């Protein structure tokens, strides 16, 4: 379908080039409509990917719609190489969708410096899409860093009271993590070519190709793998964020404008987990297995800690922010269960978290626009004056706490299966996290929506406008879709999951793809886990 069209590049750069004409626009209303048009076109262009994608593509065909590799900086072996597998496809679609919703939700929320705002929103979109599409590690890193700049400004210019602090904290944390990751990338790069640190290199031509790294990673000495894993870990764990690297997140989330929070929670955090799946696990299988207990431990601490802290919050946005820490812990636990259900669940839960937390931030933003406060205590009894709002909020709450028939259930259940199969007591702690999640979400819902209206200012709150309903409904529909019929989603990540399992733990791979077992088979494949990649149905 897209044989001769560089569809990924078009998707990625459309927002960037689309931002240029804004420089010459004056009227905020025009800019608003134009920017919406750009992200909308980008979203519509990304939809055909879903249909054209070959769900059974493996081997050469695992990454589809590939562009390149074209020589970019031949002197050091950097290529321009785009391509997506099923997991990246889901994240690309999530990004383009949330991009539209975030821009539409900003129409009324942003009242000054509109021009710069929409330019930064569009640049951010390009950066995020590039991260998910890049198949060259250098290219990936470029997008990974470029994206920080517009986010810094979104928080710094249009944020709340402590915006300067939150913006620079976000930037510094992420930058510190990513520069260490860069050293890890360079270590693999030199290991593949000329060698480093006394380790003999493989003598291959210099390259940053992710696929090549997947191929040679397993042959790296265990000690080198360990250090590279740590370097990658800092970069990705800060982004996820994993406990104890999460402290930037509440600040950034609370101070960011609504759209910024949506993108942060919806897409940026996923970049961290994406990094673990795409790079850490397949490139460094031995180190992954070795550090498994630590990763799981930190994830569990994140789940429980995030839940407990969320319980104590008085500010709705902060509550949702801490709930993110807990939910992302879930995702990480699933990924590092390193079995079919765990990985499947982890990836689906990434999407789920993007949808439901994105929706929660949008919802909080809606009342904030009306009342300019997010304190839970300021509200109460809202359901009487805003029934539609209350209904949607309830659905999203249920999705977030994992009620059956909604998407959260599918993800959390699958992750629990995976975690249980790996080490049963992981699942016990994770289940505790679910209980906590139900507690803080429902308690907040109760305090905000039920009871009598105690604050007179809330008596005249307007219910959702058509525009607000318009940008919330797609999320609600998707929550139900994944909740009721997740098969298409599991199907599209089937091959990527099989690929990773084959890399890290050959005994767990489905038999039909076990033809190319990597050289260094991991030894910790003792957990007799069924390779049931379709769990959760």
């Amino acid at each position, binding site marked *: 379908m897209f044989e001769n069209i560089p569809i990924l590049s078009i998707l990625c750069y459309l927002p960037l080039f689309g931002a240029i004409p804004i420089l010459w626009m004056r009227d905020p209303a025009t800019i608003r409509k134009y920017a919406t048009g750009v992200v909308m076109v980008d979203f519509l262009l990304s939809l055909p990917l879903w249909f054209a994608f070959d769900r059974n593509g493996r081997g050469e065909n695992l990454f589809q719609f590939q562009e390149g590799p074209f020589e970019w900086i031949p002197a050091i072996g950097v290529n321009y190489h785009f391509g997506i597998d099923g997991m990246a496809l889901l994240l690309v679609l999530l990004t383009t969708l949330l991009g539209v919703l975030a821009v539409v939700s900003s129409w009324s929320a942003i009242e000054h410096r509109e021009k710069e705002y929409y330019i930064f929103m569009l640049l951010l979109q390009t950066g995020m899409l590039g991260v998910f599409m890049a198949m060259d590690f250098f290219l990936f890193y470029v997008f990974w860093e470029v994206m920080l700049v517009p986010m810094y400004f979104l928080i710094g210019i249009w944020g709340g009271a402590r915006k300067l602090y939150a913006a620079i904290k976000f930037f510094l944390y992420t930058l510190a993590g990513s520069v*260490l990751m860069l050293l890890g990338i360079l270590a693999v790069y*030199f290991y593949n070519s000329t060698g*480093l640190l006394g380790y003999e290199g493989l003598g291959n031509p210099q390259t940053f190709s992710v696929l090549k790294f997947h191929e040679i990673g397993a042959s790296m000495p265990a000690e080198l793998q360990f250090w590279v894993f740590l370097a990658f870990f800092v970069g990705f764990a800060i982004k996820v964020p994993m406990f104890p690297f999460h402290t930037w997140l509440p600040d950034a989330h609370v101070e960011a404008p609504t759209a910024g929070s949506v993108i942060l929670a919806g897409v940026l955090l996923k970049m961290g987990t994406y990094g673990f799946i795409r790079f850490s696990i397949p490139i460094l299988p031995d180190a992954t297995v070795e550090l498994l207990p630590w990763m799981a431990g930190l994830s569990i601490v994140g789940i429980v800690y995030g839940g407990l802290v969320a319980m104590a919050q008085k500010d709705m946005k902060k509550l949702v922010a801490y709930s993110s820490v807990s939910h992302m812990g879930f995702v990480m636990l699933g990924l590092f269960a390193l079995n079919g259900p765990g990985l499947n669940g982890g990836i689906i839960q990434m999407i789920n978290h993007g949808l439901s937390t994105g929706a929660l931030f949008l919802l909080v933003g809606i009342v904030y626009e009306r009342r300019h406060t997010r304190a839970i205590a300021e509200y109460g009894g809202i359901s009487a004056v805003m029934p539609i709002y209350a209904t949607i909020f309830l659905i999203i709450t249920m999705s977030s706490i994992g009620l059956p028939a909604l998407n959260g259930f599918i993800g959390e259940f699958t992750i629990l299966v995976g975690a249980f199969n790996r080490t049963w007591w992981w699942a016990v702690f994770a289940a505790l996290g679910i209980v906590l999640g139900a507690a803080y979400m429902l308690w907040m819902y109760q305090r905000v929506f039920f009871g009598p209206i105690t604050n007179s200012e809330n008596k005249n709150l307007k219910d959702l406008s058509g525009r607000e309903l318009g940008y919330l409904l797609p999320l609600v529909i998707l929550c139900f879709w994944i909740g009721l019929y997740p098969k298409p989603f599991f199907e599209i990540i089937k091959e990527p999951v099989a690929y990773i399992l084959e890399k890290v733990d050959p005994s767990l791979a489905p038999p039909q793809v076990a033809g190319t077992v990597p050289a260094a088979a991991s030894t910790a494949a003792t957990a007799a886990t069924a390779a049931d990649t379709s769990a959760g149905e």
Partner: protein
Amino acid sequence: MPPVDFTEFFYLAPEILLAGAGLLLLLIGTLGGGIGGGNRLASVFTLLSLGLTAIALLLVGQSLAWERKLILADTFVLDGFSFYWKMLLLMATGFTVFLSYRFIEEGRYRATEYYSLLLLATAGMMFMASGYSLLTIWIGLETMALASYILAGYFKREVRSNEAALKYFILGALSSGILLYGISLLYGATGTVQLATLAERLPAAASGEMGNLVVLGWILLAAGLFFKVSAVPFHIWTPDVYVGAPTPITAWLAVASKGASFAILVRILYEGLWPLAVDWQWIVAIVASASMIWGNLAALTQDNVKRMLAYSSIAHAGYVLLGVLAVSRVGLWSVIFYMLAYTFITLGAFGTVILLERREYAGEVASDYAGLSKRAPLLAAMMLFFMLALTGIPPTGGFVGKVYLFAAAVQAGWTWVAVIGVLTSAVSLYYYFRLVVFMYLKDSTSVTPVPLQARALVAIITICALATLVLGILPGPFIAFAQQSIDATHLLQP
């Protein structure tokens, strides 16, 4: 010592041309115009002579087919490395002329002497880039240094400028003395100042009864070189000189003077002191780490933009030393590639400072930048871009250059230095972005200066920004060029 063949002076045509132009300009100054007169004429003359020198340089290179050649009794080397630096230095000085125009105009200073000193200093730098004997190098260095002492004090009616010149002169003379003392000790131990011969005789001398002399000699020599590139702990002069000197001269010191000093540092360490690499690598590692740590930490608290950029230039000396430390092809080409990127970035950043300068010193405090994004969106965007480049964030030349400096250190096994490098460069974001905070997140007040309407200067800043962008997006040809330059040398295969 082989006899001097006088036809070899042909190869010195570029240097002779440049020095001649400088002297001629000095002469012209005595003929016409009073104070401040002839600014336009003198700057055009300067640019023309720089351009002609560049052409002469290309012709000389062509005539050698870009092969390495030693001339004048093996004291002067023409190789890829020296050609690269000379082109870079000529370009940096050319840009400095554009930065200087307004300073001369507004301060009503004598133009001819200013430009003539600039040309003579550049001629000295070219000798540094090509010097192949410690004495040739030292004389080139002094030619540059004497001219820059005067230039640093060219703001003669400003106390701070006088102070800067005096400090620079005293400390500079001291370091030149140390350098020369080191040279004399090495000469005493080995009986030569010619780099190749020195490298030949050093191993024997170092293990012989003169061993202590050799150690003291090379350490003093290295200390003098570290002073010139303003690396910690030899950086004390930098902040005061950078703040006090006229801003165009500050920019020129930060790129051209530092660049030429790096050229001789690499030349001496890689060719003359090559046999002692295992020893000096440790010193370089420690100095690099100290520069990165102290330069970045001290910059955190600076409110004066020029002082902040001074500390940042100390930190950047540390980053470049990472490449020197690696003693590898990657390290070497990343050093010269990074200096190219750094030249554009720094000239662009200082150019922006100059546009905001009012009555000599305004435009220096961070709050002068408040709300710049509203008053001059393009200028603010370019300054933002330069700050990103200094931090090392893509898509800028600063990013590509830094990545490979770190890469070289990792590859050579100096991972701990590279870790210090990446962490401090993350820290540096904080102070670079202080300026961005003012430009984008704060509103201007009634006292914030409005940027000048100086078309030529804005054009130069734009060129710097575009070059930084090109080096970040399409660095391929430039990296290949840097690689070719160092391959046409004996730097890594003495």
